[in-house]
């Protein structure tokens, strides 16, 4: 008897709680209906252009063909299930290790050279005492960020072309006939891509570090100077710790992008001569999928890539938190 009463009571409690929850949702909506209505465009956008395409990843596990259904949706979801066939095809295919090596060599080069560049530039800018000089320099170094990658590619061709490139001409003066042909030598392809990135994004990348640097308490520097710290000690013990959080944050984001090469850029710089080094996962997805019509293989490649990227962001974030940083989320 006593037990049933207890059960009844707990059920009533649960019901009350549920009702309460229901009520507060309803109340929240009644009170702030405009807030929920305002969110609709963005929610719709995310559902249509982010979440529904994620369901299309199902294609990676089927033998997709546009003729498997009357409408495209029927073909996407009605094609015969193929399990991991296309993943096997991707991993055992002759291209896989080439793609893997090319992708990693470009993105690791980016990580090692393009990532530290804005930090170094920000540290140098931070040391400048002449205000107008610093401000002018900042204005100028941000500019390349705002031009299209197509323009960067065009400028690269105009500068490095072996027939009339201005910089190539300088290189021939130094190296003679052995002058590096950046535009077509496969060995130099990562250099080319990373060089473009450094030119385009270093200046702009300093903003976030300069912001972190400007928030350092000046008293710390003064105290350190009284303690006899030199320029390098100041940098090592005061400045760098102050921007460590920002560096870690940016690093996590970069790590997540390791398999994402900028395909616009690679697509623009790719040519028949450097193809051995310039075929990466992103261009593979494009050529197999969009132009080649092999949707299942291309989707499987895309899924492989985004899964690895996500795992790397999550892992990097975990590691950052283990080391006491605030992390990305």
């Amino acid at each position, binding site marked *: 008897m006593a037990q049933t009463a207890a059960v009844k009571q707990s059920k009533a409690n649960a019901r009350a709680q549920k009702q309460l929850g229901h009520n507060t949702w309803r109340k*929240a909506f009644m009170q*702030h209906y*405009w*807030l929920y209505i*305002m*969110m609709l*465009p*963005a*929610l719709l956008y995310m559902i249509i*252009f*982010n979440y*529904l*395409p*994620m369901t*299309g990843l199902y*294609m990676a596990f089927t033998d997709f063909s546009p003729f498997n259904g009357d409408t*495209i949706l029927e073909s*996407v979801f009605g094609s015969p299930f193929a399990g991991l066939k296309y993943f096997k095809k991707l991993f055992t295919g002759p291209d896989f290790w080439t793609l893997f090596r090319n992708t990693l060599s470009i993105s690791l080069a980016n990580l090692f050279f393009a990532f530290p560049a804005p930090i170094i530039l920000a540290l140098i800018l931070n040391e*400048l005492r002449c205000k107008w*000089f610093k401000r*002018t*320099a900042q*204005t100028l170094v*941000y*500019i390349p960020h*705002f*031009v*299209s990658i*197509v*323009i960067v590619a*065009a*400028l690269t*061709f*105009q*500068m490095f072309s072996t027939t*009339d490139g*201005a910089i190539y001409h300088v290189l021939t003066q130094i190296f003679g006939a052995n002058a590096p042909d950046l535009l077509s030598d496969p060995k130099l392809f990562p250099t080319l891509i990373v060089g473009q990135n450094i*030119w385009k994004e270093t*200046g702009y990348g300093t*903003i976030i570090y300069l*912001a*972190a640097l400007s928030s350092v308490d000046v008293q*710390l520097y*003064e*105290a350190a*100077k009284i*303690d*006899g710290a030199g320029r390098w000690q100041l940098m090592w013990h005061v400045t760098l*710790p102050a921007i460590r*959080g*920002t560096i870690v944050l940016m690093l996590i984001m970069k790590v997540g992008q390791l398999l994402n090469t900028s*395909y616009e850029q690679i697509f*623009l710089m790719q040519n028949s001569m450097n193809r051995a080094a310039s075929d990466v996962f992103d261009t593979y997805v494009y050529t197999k*999928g*969009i132009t080649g019509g092999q949707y299942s293989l291309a*989707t499987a490649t*895309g899924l492989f*890539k*985004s899964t690895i990227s*996500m795992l790397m962001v999550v892992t990097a974030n975990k590691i950052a938190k283990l080391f006491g940083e605030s992390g990305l989320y």
Partner: protein
Amino acid sequence: MTMPFTHKKDEVRATGTLEARTPGDQAVQVLLYVIIALVALACVLPFIYVVAGSFATERELTERPFFLIPQDVSLNAYQYILKQGDVFRGLKNSVIVTVIGTLINMFVSCTIAYPLSRPYLKGRNGFINMVIVTMLFTGGMVPAYIMVVNVLHLGNTYWALWLPTAMSAFNMIIIKNYFQGIPMELEEAAIIDGSNDLITFVRIILPLSAPVLASVSLFYAVSHWNSYFNAMLYINNSDMEVITIVLRRLVFLTTQVAEDSTFDWGAAGMPPIKAVKMATTVLSTLPILCIYPFVQKFFTQGVMVGSVKG
């Protein structure tokens, strides 16, 4: 943040004043100025060269590898571009795509940023996670392509350039963080006056957010103006070509200028192939460089606000 400021006390040595500068210190300082000057030059020299080259004769462009002031000024390239029309059509199309695209971006981003910036919004964490997931994981190129072309039938319309990029989660969060920083008291006063959330947003929050709205608009506008891949993917009607497509065609693909026999290139007798490439580069960069000085003070602020997590 804690400052690991555990200096070894025994290393303290007496210095005269705080601003004491050794000759070595001064040399380093000079070196730093030189480095920054060189970096800044490296950023702008290519542009100056291209501007100079666009006004140069074809002969000079072939003979001199690098110059910043052309010996003979020639307007052939610009005349060709004016008459031929592709570049100006591309510029016009890019303006349309950029202006409407940015308006859509700002509408979609601000209308979700405001609710998400309110701590009392029920379900807020769920909605924020929904946004963060889109930053971490995507369906990839092929499903997105199918959605735009086969499901929504947006191919060959500008909607294909506007809708798939209607919101950037990153930019939205910048706006959201800024809204969060606006003192709640202002809003409470409005609510006491009988205002609802929408009116508060339009009358109070938006007018107070000019800096972040300006910088995020710039980010969106720049990405529309510069976008190339989506235009290549979704638009294959030459009347609708945006400037980046025209630029790529003129710079990389065709020998159109050389083959165009309807133009008389004057005494030099050479079609301005290189100069046209350079002039196209100049014209497509110019609009951004014109806006840039006016918004520069805003966007540094915008990036900084965005770096504060919320």
